[in-house]
């Protein structure tokens, strides 16, 4: 939540360089998520994990949690901080 402004900056910086952001929400109901996305002006796609299946698939233990995937869909990094995210994306784009 507190990371949204920083994430928006990263999104603006990378969206035209072949980087995709996907938000996966653990919220109890979709309405809360929709309101937040609208009020914060979040423009990347959002998935509501209604049945918790994505939480199970990626073994998520808390939020926020980031997974970073390279161009081949391989896991490049997981559970990294938002501070680390930027440099990790830059490294991946150089490859």
């Amino acid at each position: 939540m507190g990371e949204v402004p920083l994430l928006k900056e990263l999104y603006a910086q990378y969206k035209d360089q072949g980087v995709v952001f996907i938000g996966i929400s653990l919220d109890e109901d979709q309405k809360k998520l929709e309101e937040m996305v609208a009020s914060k002006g979040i423009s990347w796609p959002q998935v509501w994990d209604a049945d918790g299946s994505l939480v199970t698939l990626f073994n998520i233990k808390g939020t926020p949690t980031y997974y970073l995937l390279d161009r081949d869909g391989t896991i490049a990094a997981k559970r990294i901080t938002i501070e680390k995210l930027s440099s990790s994306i830059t490294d991946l784009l150089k490859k």
Partner: protein
Amino acid sequence: MAGACFVTNLMRRRRVNSNVACHEINLQHTWGKMKRKIIAQLFGSLLGLMFLLTLMTRAQNKPPKLDDPELDRVQAMISQAKKESGQFSKSGSKASEPNNPNLKWAATLWEYRNKHPDTPASAIATTEALRLLVRADRISEMQTKADTVKLDEAAWKRAIYVLVEAAANKKDYNYLISKTQALSQTAVDPEIKVFAHITLGDAYWKSGDTAQARVAFQAVVTKYPKTPYAEEAEGNLMEIELLNPGQPAPQFARTTIKGDPISLAGFKGRVVVLKFWGTY
């Protein structure tokens, strides 16, 4: 990473933010349960409401049953310690300095423990004394004291979190491993036993020993089947097996909140950032 803690599967199901300290969640949970009970009584029937009103009238004369004055006493010490330590760190002092008020309060709470063995208030005093030592950067002193807490004591229910915090601060998991190993075998409370066992797995995992982590998680799955702990251990075993950097990310296809189909396969050739989050 002060305040960070392991988030158990139990909490995951309740979708709790990992930044909230675990012991606070436990307290809130108890209060939440109480509140639900009270609400159920209120709406149960008019009779129930009248009954409650009678109780409340009585409560004005007598303190409510749940109020343990000893618990209040210990809680007062803890809040005072928190206040003083807040002022101390605001003044720019380092946690390890000898005049850290956490040290004085750790000693006071430990003295309380020694004078009042085996009470609920004493269990809290024990845990908080250990926690304050960690927050004053006195890890080895904390460990010496923790070694005098018998393995069958109820204090371990919360004190395990203190050991986790100390290990994470110092990136040294040896003490946490040895203690949770002992607790997983000899604790009397089954809840402490299983929690120690899964924490043992986490500790091995964080220390880089995935082989031993696997053994511990597998044991939790076998010994405590169909529990949230077994489910958590299974998730961890899967992650150790399949979710490492260099391995293909699990595929998924969903619909976004705007109604558009979205799948990982559709983003081949692009770098993908997945952010799991919640608005809470």
